[in-house]
């Protein structure tokens, strides 16, 4: 009887924990996702609605809001790779290249096989005239893929940097 009671009690506790845990998880995911979603909205407003119409000031305002939203998302979930990617893109678009490079590095640390992120980071380095780091980044990218065509392209980029130097 006592054994049965203990079993039922443990089962109840386990069920409570299991049912509560996803809620907590969902709440956290929902908030960071919401910030990321809002950030994207602001980014799109600035990048697709304002910039093409020459409304730089309005675009900058939207970009500031987007930056804050992406940063909030990352603060809630530091390994939220999509938010890092969006923030990197936003910095790059705003020509804040050092910040873009830092954000792309974060993307790559979370998603090392994101070869296009490696290329974007290398591009940011090139524009910062940090050529050796750009080459290093592309060499690193080559180790993350078996795609021969992609490796051929990466070699082409490396060659261009060396010619540029």
């Amino acid at each position, binding site marked *: 009887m006592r054994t049965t009671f203990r079993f039922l009690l443990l089962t109840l506790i386990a069920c409570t924990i299991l049912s509560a845990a996803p809620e907590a998880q969902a709440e956290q995911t929902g908030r960071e996702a919401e910030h990321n979603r809002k950030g994207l909205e602001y980014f799109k407003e600035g990048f*697709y609605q304002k910039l*093409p119409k020459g409304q730089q000031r309005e675009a900058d305002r939207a970009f500031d809001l987007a930056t804050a939203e992406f940063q909030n998302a990352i603060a809630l979930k530091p390994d939220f790779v999509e938010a890092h990617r969006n923030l990197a893109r936003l910095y790059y678009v705003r020509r804040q290249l050092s910040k873009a490079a830092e954000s792309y590095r974060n993307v790559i640390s979370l998603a090392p096989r994101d070869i296009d992120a490696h290329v974007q980071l290398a591009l940011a380095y090139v524009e910062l005239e940090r050529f050796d780091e750009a080459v290093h980044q592309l060499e690193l990218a080559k180790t993350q893929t078996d*795609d021969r*065509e992609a490796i051929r*392209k990466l070699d082409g980029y490396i060659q*261009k940097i060396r010619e540029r130097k």
Partner: protein
Amino acid sequence: MNRKSPAMLILLGFALAAILAGMIGPVSASNPKSAYYSDSTSNVFWFIHTSDLHIGARGTQDTANLTWLVSQAKNVIAPDFIIVTGDLTDSTDGNLFGYPNGPYQSEWDQYTNIVDVRVTPEDYFDLPGNHDEYNDGDFNYYLSNSVQGRRTGNTQLSFTRTPGFGKYHFVGINTADNSGDPFSIFGPYYGDYAGLDAEELSFIGAELAANSDSDLTLVFGHHPLAPTGNPEDTYVNYGLDQFLGLMDFYSSVSYGYGHTHAFSEAFFGPGLTQPGFFYLNVASLGKSSSNQYSLFAIDCNGISSTTRTVGSWPVVLITAPVDRYYGNVTSPYGYDVQASSSSPIRALAFDPDGITRMDYRIDGSSTWYPMTNVPADPKLWSTGWNSSALAQGDHTIEVRATNGKGVTSSNTITARVLQSSPPLPPQVHIDSLATGKYVKQNKTTTFVFGSDFYQGDTVVIRAQAMIGTMPVTGASVTLSITGPEIVTLTTGASNSQGIAEAKWATKAPARRSTGTAIGSYTATVTGVTAPGATWDNATTPQATFTIKSR
């Protein structure tokens, strides 16, 4: 305009098919076979097709070449319009890798700074390409900056030209991906899953239907419609079958495109019920070093084009006759030149320094003949060419333009000359067919006509071969004898009276044979050969006879 799942595409395909089904019957279609050979000098107009400007690309002649096209080329050639099939911008902002991570408003600003003061929406038609779409699936930058995007709020085009001698419909399609995916260094699509979604196909179908009374329909888009052999050349994926169905249904005469940065001239026909359409690829205006634009002419509904390099003058294009091998095939939309002492040749010629003379020659001859300027159309030159002296068949026509500095340029086509129909060989006919046998009387053998024979007789079938009312010597006749037995006989050569004879030696009954079967027989002519003549196979006299037992 978003990427659709395969299932969605199938549904949309059905929807489109339903739309098309509703159209079948009342609509007409343009007629690529309507080209005609005429001495009229007033049924011609011309336009320019170019592609892949890549404004913003590092280390290219992008802005210089576009400026040249919309200033000097536009002023000198005076095309009815210029159509540009996409990749207006490079989307790289000149980055070192050429990695398209835009869009960049700075590139679009360069573009609008060049075109806005030199073209109008009535004479310049710019379409988007994949470089105008990376990271911008809604084409916000194209719609805010391109000449036609600003005018129409659409990414596709449809316009007509009615120069007084026909109606010509031009459709510009948006083959670029609609997903807004970024460029990727990974194939097979490289961020460019090109195609036509339901909304785009609906526009194309509606415009083709609304202008189905056009003489010709010409379609332009950015991407190829099939693999090119280069794995990096993306091509139209989704919506392709529906698009080809529309091209086929409305008998479009051509599809002009870019994207590959290479020039090619071909004919697209597989899987279509109509012969197909000219499939014409122009290289990149911004990034290629040659073949960067094509000059097209429509002359009496015949299409011709020449693909040229920026800055190269003079430009010359033969507009009539049309090239028999346009599209690198025996063109199903061309015509033959009926030989005459004055077969028309027409050509357009352009040069900033003016054209001082135009000449033509045939089959690479060392002799050039002058052409004259058409007073009503100073860019058009014409002449009458004596094609009657040539052998029937293919002949090359080369037209050479000379500019004010003595610089020449030429254009060559092939035309098939048809001489007046050669006389048909005379036709022989069998005027009469009769039976009889040879009878010997008093050492004299004579032929006796008759139709009753006994077993063992030699039946002689006599045919008279004639051409008109004249007997034919040397004719041979094949005969079929049908009845209880079937026999084929061939006569010897006919004599001077046209008479040819075949002999059938029938058999009399013997101890072990009943002989040739008795009964009624019919002799019929089944063939005639005669020197220098053919059998008319029309007059087929018969002869009937009977074989009896004794």
